[in-house]
């Protein structure tokens, strides 16, 4: 039964048609094309092709996987996993070669292992430099920005024009009272605290932005 493994006849490949639902365990030694749904567990010693109409909700173990449809579950491939333009996947990918084409949607982890360092090393630096400089590059300017803020009094006069609009707004009135009450300070300083507060808020926003990226 397993003898015709290498049969070159293309027509004999297994096809799961668009209206078919298979739930359970599917194993085999030949290419499998999924146009319908497969749920459960799927293991092949050859290639899995999930076409655009195909939905696979299963843990997949294959040699190659080409996903143009939907896969929910983990894929472990001994050779490669490719998410094409129409591919959507949620789950983890484990394969020495992982190809994600523009337009594909993917959420999950990727593990390319340590095999074939030549290939993976070539692919990874492309993705990383984009992420790394962005983080340190923005955190560094953020530090000097904090220093003037703490020694704020020299800076505050420059920003003094900004507080006047605050008293003008009815909604902002509750804010000004607390600073004078807490500090009971010289009349020159009351405008300063809201300015510092505004600056602090702005900086917090900046930090969030850097973290988000």
């Amino acid at each position: 039964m397993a003898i015709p493994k290498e049969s070159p006849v293309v027509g004999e490949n297994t096809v799961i048609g668009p209206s078919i639902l298979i739930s359970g365990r599917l194993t085999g030694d030949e290419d499998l094309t999924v146009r319908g749904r497969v749920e459960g567990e799927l293991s092949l010693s050859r290639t899995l092709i999930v076409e655009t109409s195909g939905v696979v909700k299963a843990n997949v173990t294959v040699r190659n996987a080409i996903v143009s449809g939907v896969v929910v579950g983990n894929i472990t491939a001994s050779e490669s996993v490719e998410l094409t333009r129409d591919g959507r996947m949620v789950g983890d990918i484990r394969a020495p070669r992982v190809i994600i084409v523009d337009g594909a949607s993917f959420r999950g982890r990727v593990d390319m292992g340590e095999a074939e360092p030549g290939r993976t090393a070539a692919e990874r630096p492309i993705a990383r430099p984009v992420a790394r400089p962005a983080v340190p590059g923005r955190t560094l300017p953020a530090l000097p920005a904090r220093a003037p803020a703490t020694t704020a009094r020299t800076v505050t006069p420059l920003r003094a024009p900004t507080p006047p609009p605050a008293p003008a707004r009815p909604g902002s009135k509750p804010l000004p009272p607390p600073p004078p009450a807490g500090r009971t300070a010289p009349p020159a300083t009351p405008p300063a605290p809201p300015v510092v507060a505004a600056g602090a808020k702005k900086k917090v926003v900046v930090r969030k932005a850097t973290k988000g990226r």
Partner: protein
Amino acid sequence: MANTIIGSSIVIDGEISGDEDLVIQGTVKGKIQLKESLFVEGSGVVEADIETQNVEVAGRVTGNILASDKVELKSDCRVVGDIKSPRILIADGASFKGNVDMDVKER
């Protein structure tokens, strides 16, 4: 074209359901539910209860077959289980063990 084919090296353990023709060259265990025709080819092995419109068996089937239209057992097939269908054809050379019930009237 739209046919579903389960290739000869494929083993499915579970349930298959659908609205199209299904050709089995491999092994299916569990349950098969179709609104169209099921073809179990010479290399096919089915250990499942089958519920379809038409069934053509040239391979091995173990399990009960319920077909709303027709069941055809080709020569060289081996079927163990009960068959319930308005039309049942058993070809010369077929091997079959089980009950036959043709009493199911037209859909």
